[in-house]
C-alpha cells in the first residue's frame, strides 16, 4: 500500500509539474490580455513535433533548445498578426479565433507529420533508473522533467517579481495606459509575453513528447485539462496555477492507483445489490474509471462556489 502511495505521488508530481509548465504560460497570457488561448495546447504539441524533427538530425538537446524558440516566435507572430487584429471585435471573437487556430494547428500537424505516432525518444544519457524503491525503478528522465519544471517556476517567479522587466510587465497588466505614457512599448510587451508563454508550452511539449507519446491527439489530451487548471487556480494567478496543477496531477494519479469503487462503499454500509439492476453501471463504478472526469467535476464545483478560483482575486 505504502509503495503504491509513494509512486502515485511521484507520478502525480511529474504530471502536475508538466501541467504547470503549460498552465503558467496560459495564465500569464490571460492576465495580460484577458484572453484564454485555446491554441496553447496545440503549441505544446508543435513543440514536441519540432523537437522530434530536430532530434532526428541534431539530437535531443539541441531540440530542447531550438524547438521552444521556434514555438515562441510562432506565438509572437500569432499575437502580432492574428490576435491584435481580432481584438477590436471583442473577447468572444478572440476566444473563437484561438479556438480556430487550435483546430488549424491540429490539422496542419497531421498534414506535415502524418496521422501516426512518432518515435520520439528520450536521450540515451538519461536512460537509467534514478533510484529503485520497493523494487520499482524511477527513471532519470522523469527526474529530469521534475528538475526542469521546478527551474522554470523559480526562474519565472524571480523574473516577474525581482527584475525590472518583470515590474514593467506587472505594471502593464494592471495599468497599460500609464506604462505606455511612461514611454514603454506596451504592444511589444504583449507580443513578447505571448511569445514567452508559447515558448513555455513548447518546452513542455519537448520534454513531454518522449513520455506521453508524440501523436496528433496529444493536444486534445491535455488541452482542456490545462484550462481546468488555470480556472481552478484562479485566472491570472501563477501560484494558483501551481497549486491547481499539483492538485490535479496528484488527484488523477491517486485515483488511477487506487482500486476503490462504489461497491466497496456499499459493502462498508452493509448494502447489497444485484448485478442485473439497470443501474449496475453506477454500482460497479471504480475510482480509476472516473479519474478522467475528476478535473471537470472539480472545475464545475469551483466555478459554482468560487468563480474567481482558488487564488484568483479578479472578478471579470
Amino acid at each position, binding site marked *: 500500500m505504502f509503495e503504491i502511495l509513494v509512486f502515485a505521488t511521484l507520478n502525480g508530481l511529474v504530471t502536475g509539474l508538466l501541467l504547470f509548465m503549460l498552465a503558467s504560460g496560459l495564465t500569464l497570457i490571460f492576465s495580460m490580455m484577458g484572453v484564454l488561448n485555446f491554441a496553447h495546447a496545440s503549441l505544446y504539441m508543435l513543440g514536441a513535433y519540432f523537437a522530434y524533427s530536430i532530434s532526428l538530425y541534431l539530437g535531443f538537446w539541441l531540440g530542447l533548445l531550438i524547438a521552444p524558440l521556434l514555438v515562441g516566435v510562432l506565438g509572437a507572430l500569432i499575437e502580432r498578426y492574428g490576435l491584435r487584429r481580432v481584438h477590436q471585435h471583442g473577447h*468572444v471573437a478572440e*476566444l*473563437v479565433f484561438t479556438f480556430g*487556430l487550435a483546430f488549424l494547428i491540429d490539422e496542419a500537424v497531421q498534414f506535415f507529420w502524418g496521422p501516426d505516432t512518432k518515435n520520439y525518444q528520450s536521450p540515451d544519457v538519461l536512460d537509467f533508473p534514478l533510484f529503485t524503491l520497493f523494487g520499482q525503478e524511477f527513471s532519470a528522465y522523469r527526474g529530469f522533467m521534475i528538475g526542469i519544471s521546478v527551474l522554470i517556476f523559480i526562474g519565472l517567479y524571480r523574473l516577474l517579481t525581482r527584475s525590472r522587466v518583470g515590474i514593467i510587465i506587472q505594471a502593464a497588466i494592471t495599468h497599460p495606459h500609464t506604462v505606455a505614457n511612461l514611454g514603454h512599448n506596451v504592444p511589444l510587451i504583449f507580443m513578447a509575453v505571448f511569445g514567452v508563454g508559447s515558448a513555455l508550452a513548447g518546452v513542455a511539449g519537448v520534454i513531454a513528447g518522449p513520455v506521453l507519446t508524440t501523436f496528433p491527439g496529444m493536444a486534445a489530451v491535455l488541452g482542456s485539462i490545462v484550462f481546468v487548471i488555470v480556472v481552478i487556480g484562479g485566472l491570472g494567478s501563477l501560484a494558483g496555477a501551481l497549486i491547481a496543477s499539483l492538485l490535479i496531477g496528484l488527484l488523477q494519479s491517486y485515483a488511477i492507483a487506487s482500486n476503490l469503487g462504489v461497491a466497496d462503499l456499499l459493502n462498508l454500509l452493509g448494502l447489497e445489490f444485484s448485478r442485473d439492476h439497470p443501474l449496475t*453501471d453506477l454500482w460497479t463504478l471504480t475510482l480509476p474509471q472516473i479519474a*478522467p472526469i475528476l478535473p471537470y467535476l472539480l472545475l464545475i464545483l469551483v466555478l459554482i462556489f468560487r468563480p474567481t478560483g482558488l487564488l484568483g482575486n479578479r472578478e*471579470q
Partner: protein
Amino acid sequence: MKKFLTKSFAWFGYLAVLLLLPQFFDSILAVSLFNQMAIAIVFALSYNMLLGQGGMLSFGHAVYFGLGGFLAVHALLLIEFETVYFSIVYIPLLAGLVGLLAALFIGSFSTRKAGTVFAMISLGIGELLAASSLIFVSFFGGEAGVSGDRTYGPPLFGVEFFQGIEIYYLAAAWVFVATLFMYLFTQTPAGRMANAVRDNPERAEFIGYSARRVRYISFCASGFFAGIAGGLYALNYEFVTEETLNAVTSGRVLLMAYIGGLGYFIGPILGAVILTLMNSLLSNYTDLWMLYLGILFLLTVLFLPKGFAGFIMMHRVAWLQRRIGKLVLPYLATGIPAMLFMATCVLMLELSHLEDESLSVLSIDLSASSPFTWIGLLLIATISMLVTRRTLPALREAWEFANHMTDEPESKS
C-alpha cells in the same frame, strides 16, 4: 403591412425550397445530404440563440444534441420491443424535452455569468458528459454506441419511414416548425432582452431585468431546439454514438454558426448548408478538407467577423442607393486573381500531400516530382497575389463611393 408581406413571402419561399428540393435532386446521395443539412440547420440555429443572440459562447452545446439523440434511440428501442406504442413522428419533440430538462438543470448554475466563466463551465460539462458516456455503458452503449430501428412504429398515413426520402419530409416539417419558432422567439420580449443582456448586462439590470434569468430562458430554449436536432439525427442514422455529445460536435456547431454569421437569423442556416456541403462533397475528393475548413474558419474570424451573412448584409447600403452595380467590376478585378491565388495554393497543398503521383488539372498533367511544376505554381501564386494587392485600393475606393451617403440616411429597420 408591406414588411409583413415580404416576411411571409420569405417564409413561404423557405417552405417551398424545403419541400421542392428532393424533386430536383432525388438521388439517394442527395437526399441523405439534405437530411444532414436539415439536422445541421436546427442545431446551428439553436446554437445561435446562445452565442449570436444571447452572447453566451458555449463549447459544450453537443451535450443537449447528444442527450436528445440518445433518448430518441432509446425511444426507438422501446417502440421496437413494444413497451410503448406511438408514431416516431413525435420522437424529436421528446428529444427536445430531454434537451430542455438538461438545460434547465445545467443552466441553473452556468448562466450566472456570460463570457469566459460561462464558456469554461460549458467546456467542463461537455468534457464531463463525454467522459461519462464511456463509463455508463448501459445507457450510452460505450464506444459502440446505441442503434435502433425506426420502422417498427405505427405508420403515419401509410408511411413507414423505410426510405431516406420519407425521413426527409419528416425532418423538413420539423425544421420548418423549429425555424419558425426560433424566429418567433427572437421577436418575443425574452428574445429582445437576450440581445440587450448580450450588449450591456448592466443596463439591462438597471431597467429591472435579471440578466441571469434572461440568459437562463435563452439557454433553456436553445437546449430544447438542440435536443430536437439530436432527435432528428437519431431518426436519420438510427445510430447514436459518443461522438454526438463530445467536443468535436460542439466545435462543429460553433464553426457552422460563426462561418454563417452570428447575429443574423439566416446566418447559421447558411453556415449549416455550406459546412454540410463541404463535409460531404469535399471529403470525396481530398483528405485535406479539414485543413481547408480550418483555414476558411480562421479567415472568416479575421476578415469577416460577421460571417457570410454579414458579408451579404454589408451591401445593403450600396443596394439601397442603387450603386451596387458600381461594385461589380472592382469585385471581379480583385476577386479573380484572389481566387486564382487560392486555387494555386490549394493545388500546391494537394501536390505536396500526394506521394509520387501526378495530378491532372484542366487536362494539364502536374507531376509532384518535377521542379518545373513547383516553379510554375509559385510563379502563378506570386503574380496573382501581387495583382490582388494592386487592385485592392481601387476596390476600397469603389466601396467608399458606393457607401457614401448622399441622400437621406437609410431608415432604421
